[in-house]
């Protein structure tokens, strides 16, 4: 038995203390009380612990004399068959707070397995030698379980009639004080963007990926509003978390699984962009993505950057963008480019993924809309692709023909599909 040889407990085990199966009802039972403390010396047959089952209180005695090691403390809920303590030959190491240990979740433990799977060859089955005193906790009367209403007649009316909203019932508040639960996908995004979820989503119940995306969208929008001039990428990347938007009405209520939403449904996009008219939106889209996007591809070098800025790309100084590069086809406002960045021929920088209807709505390929940040001094080699959500750190290099799907740390060279780190530059002091 592995537990016997664990380095924390070198003392040989004289007897195990386990939860016996005594009722047909319970898979788990509660440790009502230990009658000895961790480390106490006990005699054989001494009463050790009371265990509460749905039927009765079982009392478990020591099979052998020795020193008690407590593994599950008072109040713990443990599965049938669980090892809750041992009687050792010598005093056990002090286990911090062993006797006041918080209840351990039974988890997925199978009650039967606990007994068969971990009972050592040397240990005698506790069940046969423990004396179980059946205290019949259910005995009714003055006992704890009794109902004893002061006026049986009044009580006989039952809980529904007795009170429209008397004891036992109260009217639903607007929003209960629920604690947060964050899905794994949402958590990944939160981690990626180093968001302070507890603050941002305070007052929310469930936080899904879509909630985080919306938060990021609103952050960009807010930022744009506040800083019409091209910001330094560092400002965005390191800006303090922005409070969730107060007006929930600006949030599309059906994204992404509820309707074609953000991409197909102009009306909901309009909401996203602050309730502007659909016409304006259509014009905006056409203008930014088709007209200006194409213009940028044919324009002389000198006007490429202003065109991209007009499209909404946030850009620092000394940037080079080749005319054949594509800087987002639909959401240029999600692209942030720092100072002295070079994006060479044939590159594609994307901030969204939108699969066909089937893949999207079946949940196989969810819609993605994540900002892309190219920090100062980056170099994107020819024919490379930068995918949504990627931040390319300061002075990093993406070699030709790479596809970047994860963040690139500063002063790093990446290569390949998917791009992997191949070189680390020394950081200047």
């Amino acid at each position, binding site marked *: 038995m592995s537990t016997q040889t664990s380095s924390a407990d070198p003392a040989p085990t004289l007897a195990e203390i386990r939860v016996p199966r005594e009722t047909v009802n319970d898979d788990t039972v509660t440790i009502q009380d230990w009658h000895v403390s961790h480390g106490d010396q006990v005699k054989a047959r001494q009463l050790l612990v009371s265990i509460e089952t749905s039927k009765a209180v079982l009392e478990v005695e020591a099979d052998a004399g020795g020193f008690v090691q407590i593994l599950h403390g008072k109040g713990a809920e443990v599965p049938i068959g669980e090892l809750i303590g041992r009687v050792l030959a010598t005093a056990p190491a002090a286990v911090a707070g062993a006797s006041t240990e918080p209840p351990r979740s039974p988890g997925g433990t199978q009650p039967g397995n606990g007994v068969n799977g971990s009972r050592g060859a040397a240990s005698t089955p506790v069940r046969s030698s423990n004396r179980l005193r059946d205290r019949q906790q259910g005995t009714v009367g003055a006992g704890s379980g009794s109902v004893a209403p002061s006026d049986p007649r009044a*009580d006989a009316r*039952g809980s529904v009639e007795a009170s429209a909203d008397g004891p036992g019932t109260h009217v639903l508040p607007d929003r209960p004080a629920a604690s947060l639960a964050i899905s794994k996908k949402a958590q990944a995004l939160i981690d990626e963007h180093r968001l302070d979820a507890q603050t941002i989503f305070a007052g929310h119940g469930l936080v899904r990926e879509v909630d985080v995306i919306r938060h990021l969208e609103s952050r960009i929008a807010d930022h744009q509003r506040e800083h019409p001039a091209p910001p330094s990428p560092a400002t965005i990347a390191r800006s303090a978390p922005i409070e969730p938007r107060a007006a929930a009405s600006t949030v599309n209520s059906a994204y992404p699984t509820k309707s074609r939403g953000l991409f197909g449904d102009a009306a909901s996009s309009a909401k996203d962009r602050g309730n502007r008219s659909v016409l304006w939106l259509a014009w905006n889209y056409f203008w930014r993505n088709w007209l200006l996007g194409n213009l940028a591809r044919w324009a002389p070098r000198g006007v490429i950057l202003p065109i991209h800025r007009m499209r909404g790309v946030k850009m620092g100084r000394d940037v080079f963008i080749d005319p054949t590069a594509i800087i987002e086809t639909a959401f240029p406002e999600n692209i942030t480019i720092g100072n002295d960045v070079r994006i060479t021929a044939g590159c594609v920088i994307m901030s969204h993924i939108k699969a066909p209807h089937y893949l999207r709505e079946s949940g196989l390929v969810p819609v993605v809309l994540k900002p892309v940040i190219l920090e100062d001094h980056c170099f994107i080699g020819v024919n490379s692709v930068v995918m949504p959500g990627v931040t390319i750190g300061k002075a990093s290099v993406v070699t030709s023909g790479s596809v970047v799907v994860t963040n690139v740390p500063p002063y790093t060279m990446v290569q390949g599909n998917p791009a992997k780190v191949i070189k680390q530059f020394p950081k200047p002091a």
Partner: protein
Amino acid sequence: MGHSVLSVFSPVNDPRTLLPDPLSNFPAELKTALTIRMVEQRLLKLFSEGKLFGTVHTCIGQEFVGVSVSRCLNDRDTIFSNHRGHGHFLSYRRDILALIGEIMGKSCGVCGGRGGSQHTQIDGFYSNGIQGGIAPVAAGQAFAHKLKGSTGGGGGIAVVYIGDGTLGQGALYESLNIASKWDLPVLFVNENNLFAQSTSQTQTLAGDINARAEAFGIKAWHSDTWDWPKLLDNMRACIDEIRRTGRPAWHRVDTFRLMAHSKGDDNRPQEYVQPFFDRDPVNVLMKRYEADPRWKAMETEIAAEIEAAVAAADAAPWGDVRMDEHKPGSAHEYHWQHRTFEKEKGVAAVRKGLEHGLECHPNLVLIGEDIESPYGGAFKATMGLSTRWPERVRNTPISEHAISGIGNGLALCGMIPVVEIMFGDFMTLCADQWINHAAKFRFMFNDKVRVPLIIRTPMGGKRGYAATHSQSIEKHFVGLPDTQVLCLNHRYSPTLLYKDLFASIDRPTLVIENKILYGQNVNPDPPPGFDLIFTNERFPTARLKPDTNEHGAGAGTDITIVALGGVAVDAEEAVIRLFNDEDLVCDLFMPTRLYPFDIGVLEPSLRQSRRLLIVEEGQGFVSMSSEIIAQACERLGHLGLSARRVTATPNPIPAARPLEQLCLPGANHIVTKALEVMREHANVQR
């Protein structure tokens, strides 16, 4: 056809039939007997005239049985009669219009035309057309009389009529056993007319009739209708003795049905039946008083009464089938609210509810196998209760049919019986009482009676009890109008449910408990990110409502899940996994009432999600989940709903744990189906 049966009965009339003047000694009795004879003859005529719908079972030849019993009863006593009950009825209450009107199906009938010939009810008189099943009901009535008597309410006695063909029914012997063991004041009257429909007793009866009752320690009497004065005496002595001793009695009365079993279905040869015509007591009396003006006057008076009744019934309007309350499925406004209750083991909460019931309702009685302490029931739900209320918490023999029938009898007499059926699988043995008695009494007795019967039983597997102790067979018991089926889950307090049930009980109610739940905590605290709310109904639907940051009912819900009973635990686990791992938001509904079920409670959520997933531990074919999907399609089909079910695999439940896990719904199955319904949704053009 055994001609030898004639020898069963003494061929010679007792000299006492030739009393100097029976008419002056027993004027009331003879008038009742003659009334029964003439009413039934008129009924046969009405039948020939095409005025009756259905059939009539006449008791022509057997009139004196009913007469002999009813004259000894008072208004605390009850009678349970059978398919051949016109004579029993008229001797209990000589209301010719009530009976003829009923058989003609008119509103002036004693049950408004709903009951007909076999199902009549007035005051302490009841009849039902199920052979044998009425015996335990009568025993239950006797139990109620006894309990009332012991609390100073003045106990009556119960009577039940049993044909000799019905001697083949097991429920009868379960009832004899309990009646004797419990000292119930019940009289079993066995009308021994040698035939059951077309079948001669010689083909079906083994051994001796009275020895059967005597084997249970019940005193067995023997009379016949030919020597009717002696029958009257014997019956009075027998009933007096029941009142004196409080013990049951058995009274075999040899008699003969002169006419067909029903109508036109007599294939007994004429030469066999004829001798019985000649010695029939009413025929003998008619012959004897042929020229007596007193008899003539009586006949004329009865005939006039009958004709008046027929004319009145003919002119009366038809009744109706409305019941006074809203039908399942009718619009109900649901409001959601929080409820507070203690977190505790399911079995403790059930016990508390029962304890509360015994405490607050002096007419509440718990019966079942092994429910007395110190054992306290197979799952310990009644632990300790018999110590405090020994009169009202009682162990029974292994007789599920009889104990559910006793429940019905108690219920008819104003008690609140709570019958524990040890394992839900054994409900099959209660099916007759549930379906043919409990569910029908109120309607067929024209809303005059209530059957506040409660049956509690644990269903569900995951305990390794295998095929006959693990099933969830509630689907066989839902759907009977005027009944309700409740189920417990880990999200609503059984204590509150039982309190409200006891306070409101007015119909047969099956409460499905769950073996797993007994050892689990009933838990009022929702997991993070969810709110636990309840409908404002007496038996609420619990809802684990996702708290998304979108507002409005059901906003942001991907799947609406309904979990029935114990599987709510698995569904909840799945809901949490679906959120954590798949980023899906599910709205979980856990109704505590399976029947009637109204889809309206799900409607707002379904409108949002348009995906429905139902988790049910039993078999899926024609089940609660089929019903819910049917209702959803009828109400919301235009939304293009996608639906899936998670139910048991189609086989009996195996014993081994891994095999059982394959068969019964668990969180894994639920997650898989949820993803399936998500995928399907994408294919549907919205």
